[in-house]
């Protein structure tokens, strides 16, 4: 057990020291999140939106950051090793694919928590924003972490076989999910009725509904959200394992020579 925890920690250690020495990576947690935040909140205040919509945007941005950082950290931690040609050294080590995924997901989670803390301070100072219901807020963020982890497992699985293409996918498909899940709007008001049954079965849609319920803009369905989130993790883990073995059989996992 301790050995496994140490290997999981290895990924957090790598991520922390890479972040510390890399200006571009630092910008990813210090500058870009604030630019995204202010772009949307300035636009909303310019339009003279109600405080409740501004709160929805701020909460949505926090939830989305959780998905974004978990998914992206899981794939970038892997693709970084590929780019530096050290991937073979990682994969010939005793770390299991589960430990690798959990380790990088924890790094992503810590980055997300750091950014969310910055958001909480910045929005409190600028807009007087306060979290009205902490238990719901924490519960929603936990679900976003599980969803981000599922997405990261899928992206990482693709990375085992296709390597850097997964990095592009790591950027694209969270954006698609975000668009479908109605982070900053109501899906019922935007999408045609025939698409809604599918969209409402996305755990991300249900998780954003949970956040929106904090400002009275949606009705949460926590049991369904919990069930679908677990289903996603299970399916994603199976996919990840399938892709790992497929890559290992095809000789695409890593090259030594």
């Amino acid at each position, binding site marked *: 057990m301790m050995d496994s925890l140490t*290997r999981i920690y290895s990924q957090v250690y790598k991520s922390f*020291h890479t972040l510390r020495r890399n200006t571009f990576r630092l910008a990813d947690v210090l500058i870009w999140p604030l630019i995204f935040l202010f772009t949307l909140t300035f636009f909303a205040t310019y339009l003279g939106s109600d405080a409740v919509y501004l709160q929805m945007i701020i909460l949505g941005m926090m939830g989305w950051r959780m998905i974004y950082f978990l998914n992206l950290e899981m794939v970038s931690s892997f693709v970084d090793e590929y780019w530096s*040609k050290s991937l*073979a050294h990682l*994969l*010939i*080590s*005793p770390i299991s694919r589960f430990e690798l995924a959990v380790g990088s997901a924890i790094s992503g989670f810590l980055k997300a928590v750091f950014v969310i803390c910055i958001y909480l301070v910045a929005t409190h100072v600028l807009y007087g924003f306060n979290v009205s219901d902490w238990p719901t807020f924490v519960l929603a963020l936990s679900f976003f972490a599980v969803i981000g982890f599922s997405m990261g497992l899928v992206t990482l699985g693709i990375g085992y076989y296709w390597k850097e293409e997964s990095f592009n996918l790591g950027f694209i498909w969270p954006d698609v999910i975000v668009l479908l899940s109605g982070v900053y709007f109501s899906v019922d008001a935007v999408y045609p009725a025939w698409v809604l049954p599918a969209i409402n079965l996305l755990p991300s849609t249900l998780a954003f509904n949970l956040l929106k319920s904090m400002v009275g803009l949606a009705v949460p369905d926590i049991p369904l959200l919990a069930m679908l989130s677990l289903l996603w993790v299970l399916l994603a883990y199976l996919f990840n394992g399938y892709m790992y073995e497929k890559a290992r059989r095809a*000789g695409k996992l890593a090259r030594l*020579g």
Partner: protein
Amino acid sequence: MGDAIVIRGISKTYRSGGETVNALDSVSLAIREGEIFGLLGPNGAGKTSLISILAGILAPDAGYAEVVGLNCSKEAKKAQEVLNVVSGFTGVIYSLSVEEALMYYALLYNVRDAKKKIASVIKLVRLENARHLEADDLSSGMKQRYQIAKALLSDPCVLILDEPTVGLDVESAITIRDIVKRLRKEGRTILLTTHNLFEAEELCDRMAFINHGKILATGTVDELKERLVRKRTIEINCSDSQEVVERLSKIKGVNATVKSGRLALVSVDSYARMKDIMAALAGVKSEIYNLSALEPTLEETYLRIINNKAGKRGARGATGKEEGLIE
């Protein structure tokens, strides 16, 4: 001593450009504990596929490989705990100093007392002055030494060195070879792949030649050379080669020819004839300046065996197998 690495009937095919490529074809090998074993072959011979299977990152189609009794496919994670790889082709992780990168690998391998171990491997590979530099900024030679340090952190029973001196200057290559010799003294089993035959001859206790996914020959350098040498040749530098040739030709099992006025070439079926030759030379009027045995080099042996595919008829109509060159 037992076998540290056992490979039995390993086969591996890939699909490449719509064609099936036989990377490994029923390869079997046994590498003893504590020996340096060389795996030599041209590019695309199957060396990388074989070491990738041992390292657990490639699944074989058939057969099995074991490292200290652990199956490299079914018990890959356990086997990876006792094995490590130094490769001349892999890079170092970005944005970490030498010490940080080694700590990262120490965590991956659950190295106990990691700081002390890191200090000792850094000292072994002489990187004390570079410990705080970013690993990616090191010179090629230093990067290879860093890789050896990384591989030794986990104190592996089996070490795979995949072209460890490729692209290095002479001094760096000598340093790496010195380190490898020190590792042999520690009793580690080392599997070395290299295109540098001088290096293989200097370091390896035994070696195998591989081509087209098949092991063609295995043995010590002398045993491999022995396969090539049907008749041993002695070169005699003398004042009158004609007289020497006439005298030696009378000895049974000896075939002597004049190469030049001062040089005679003598073929013998065994060095046991040397006593007769020396006795005959004692009776000639000609001055004898020098007498030397002409041995094939490892390079000649390698080229002869690698190019003599089983089933392919040689100049004299015999196949490499019939000639005894190929196992």
